């Protein structure tokens, strides 16, 4: 009996002190799927929220435009603008399921720190949401309906999840964004999202990821094409199953290598005040496609292909590193992490001017590739 009293007392106490007293019915929530943020001419923050329409989502054949609605409001800060949405929204907005955050490049150029802070502090938002940069107003991206009837924010995350198939882009999540914003040394990288004209008359316009946006710490610096995107993924160990194309030297065949595995090893060095890096890339792949210029079957020397692949990769990386050092002067590969781990004391002196030191660094690249098999067609090995 005494125990029972104690137990009920405990229950009552926890009942009063609990912080989870937030009962709300699921159907009254407005599920915000994507948030876009830009600045108006007056300097106010303009927030666009894409709110899912659940009853249209569960419908048997959802209409293109009925599955979501777009709300827009303005405010002095990001949070203020989001709160002002409540004056527009038909439901209580719920941001735990936000999948994408699209930042207008005008804000990105000023720095992401002003807007990320709120999302981290808010207990509802998830750190795994994808962050994109857009050159056109975010509402245009968010209001790109598709014939499948899928909410555009989900389309964005699907494309982002499939980055491994091309490895030409890289999409950062909010967690990485926060890390980059909080750490003055880490340079942030994410993807630019574009809207492209439809491939045919009856198809609506589509969304495309094509360029990598690189930042100097949290300020947008430049956009990279996908050659450099692949180099970025190779160096930072994020390369998954991309394709690498080149011409076979002996007879100008087009060779496409599908990379199965890749890993990079970065060895920093420091001597006489000069920073050096040795980057070793190990790649395993297969010959996925070969377009022959000759009419008759002829052999392909795998050894030569491997050597050529090494060369192609090294060229690719050298080009990207040279651009990073001379054109952008930004260490967007975040080689500083590797350097810091080996030379923590030296790094302390260099960190304020790290990008300058990086641009003067000696960086050597070595690629080691192995072709595990040629395409498994009828004439394998001898195509």
């Amino acid at each position: 009996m005494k125990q029972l009293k104690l137990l009920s007392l405990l229950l009552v106490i926890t009942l009063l002190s609990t912080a989870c007293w937030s009962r709300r019915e699921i159907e009254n929530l407005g599920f915000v799927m994507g948030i876009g943020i830009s600045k108006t001419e007056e300097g106010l923050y303009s927030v666009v929220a894409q709110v899912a329409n659940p009853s249209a989502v569960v419908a048997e054949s959802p209409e293109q435009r009925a599955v979501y609605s777009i709300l827009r409001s303005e405010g002095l800060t990001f949070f203020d603008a989001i709160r002002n949405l409540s004056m527009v929204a038909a439901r209580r907005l719920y941001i735990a399921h936000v999948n994408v955050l699209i930042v207008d490049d005008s804000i990105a150029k000023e720095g992401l720190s002003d807007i990320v802070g709120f999302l981290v502090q808010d207990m509802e938002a998830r750190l795994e949401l994808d962050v994109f940069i857009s050159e056109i107003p975010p509402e245009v991206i968010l209001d790109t309906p598709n014939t499948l009837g899928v909410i555009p924010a989900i389309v964005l995350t699907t494309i982002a999840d499939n980055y491994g198939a091309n490895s030409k882009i890289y999409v950062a999540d909010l967690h990485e964004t926060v890390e980059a914003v909080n750490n003055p040394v880490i340079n942030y990288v994410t993807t630019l999202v574009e809207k492209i004209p439809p491939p045919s008359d009856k198809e609506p316009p589509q969304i495309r990821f094509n360029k990598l946006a690189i930042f100097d710490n949290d300020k947008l610096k430049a956009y990279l094409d996908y050659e450099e995107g692949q180099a970025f993924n190779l160096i930072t160990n994020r390369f998954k199953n991309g394709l690498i194309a080149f011409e076979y030297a002996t007879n100008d065949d087009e060779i496409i290598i599908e990379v199965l595995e890749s890993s990079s090893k970065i060895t920093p060095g420091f001597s006489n005040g000069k920073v050096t890096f040795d980057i070793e890339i190990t790649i395993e792949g297969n010959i996925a496609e070969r377009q022959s210029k000759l009419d008759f079957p002829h052999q392909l020397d795998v050894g030569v292909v491997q050597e050529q692949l090494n060369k192609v990769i090294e060229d690719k990386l050298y080009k990207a590193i040279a651009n990073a050092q001379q054109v952008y002067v930004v260490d967007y590969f975040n080689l500083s992490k590797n350097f810091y781990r080996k030379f923590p004391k030296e790094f302390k002196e260099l960190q304020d001017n790290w990008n300058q030191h990086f641009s003067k660094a000696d960086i050597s690249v070595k690629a080691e590739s192995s072709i595990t098999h040629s395409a498994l067609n009828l004439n394998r090995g001898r195509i």
Partner: protein
Amino acid sequence: MLRYFNNFIKKIKNLTIKNYSTNEDPLFIPEENYTSSVLSNKLDSNVTLIKTYLGHSVDLKVRSFLIPTVPSIGASVVFLDTMVEDQLLESSVIAPLTTGLSLHSEDERASLSIHIDSLIEKALSNSLVNSYENVTDVIDQILLGQGILLIDNYSKGISIKINRGPLRDFAEPKTEKVIKGPQQGFVEDIDVNVSMIRKKIKSSNLVVNQCKIGKESRSELRVIYLNNIADSSIVEELFQRLDRINIDGLINSSSIEECLTDSPSNLFQTTFCTERPDRTASLLLEGRIALLFDGSPIVIIVPSIISDFFISTEDYYQNPYFATFSRFIGYIGAFMLTFFPSIYIAITTFHQEVLPTRLALTIAGARSGVPFPAFLEALLMEIAFESLRQAGTRLPTHVGQAVSIVGALIIGQAAVEAGLVSSAVVIVVAITAIFSFTIPYTNFSLSLRLTRFFMMALAATLGIYGIMTGAFMLALNLISLRSFGVPFMVPFAPLSLQDLKDWFVRFPQWSITKRSSHIVKGNNSRKSRNMKPNPPN
């Protein structure tokens, strides 16, 4: 924690030591003891000899009479009342030996008194007559249901086939159906029930005790156990508790159950009920005690543990892997029955963030337009389902079907279409209902069905936190339960690795060699330890 761990290691050590020590005491000592003794010439001493082996059972009967030879000889028929057909005994043994013999001439009767073999040949009118000298054989015959005729100055027991023919009044077990296995259940007649158990266990150690309960009803009760296996202190305790019962009348076995439990006002029952003779026999072999009640086909088993309610008789008629799988479905069923509606409520009203985005949208879409909060909606549907179930069991079969069709149509379809309830909650209730049927024995699931409503209320006020609180309270309650001193949560708490082999999962028969030390004291070796089939050397 450390202390617990040390104890645990000690326990394991003890287990292994016991393993070796039991090797020296094989299973069948009692039988070896009585193979030496043979029947004597004295009728009285023969009867007493048999009684020493079987006399503690109430259904052992001795019918003594005089064979009218010149001079007349004393004779007795020893038999088990529950196994023997009375008329057959009368017509083929007693009548021919008494009234039938008296018709013979006096000379003939005088010669028959000397040649007892010919007396048996001439007088007995039975299809199967054999004579035995060993007490073992005699007792085996009695346990098979034969009558044993003992005659003064004759050192053999004559077994006469007077047992009951195949019983036709077996009922099919209604609540414990199996697909593969005997389709035999207990009936309302207590003697038939005892004979069913006797047919499964033909041991002289099987004790059938008699009790009468109820001042007015004078209800017959049988307490059955194996006296070489069952813990004598539990047997004593049971008789003490039975003595305490002093009421006017007992109408059904379940009334005794409530008077026998260790925690009488608890939601969970700590006695186990079955209507299957095979299940009862296997539990008796585990060292349990069975209580049979005249007029009830339900047998009460004490002490009981939580695993009893999850073990189906069919587990032992099936492949061990599949039996284990179906047990796990039962465990999942118990969990889902208790927690699934409350988890649904908690997630849809408090923790929408734990759902994957698409699932959250689907549920929100299904619930849009529903006028009730999720808790009320789920509560209404659960109550609707429970009342449907009750209506279905109370009504005659064909009406019951009509009710379930109407109920399924109204609730499953019309209510969803009208937008009164969401399709999500219908699915939740349906899944809960299906899982509630996966637990083989209803006594336990009945309690869980009630617990479910408590959990739903907690979930509606406190979310997952409330469910966890409820789960802790449930666990505390179950762990504190005892059944005749045996912890109810054996083999989980206290953890008993040996018992998990049979009571949590189902290991192959050759590996389950021991009885639980929680139920049986001492005699815990069940099978020899080298039964695992091996290729020949």
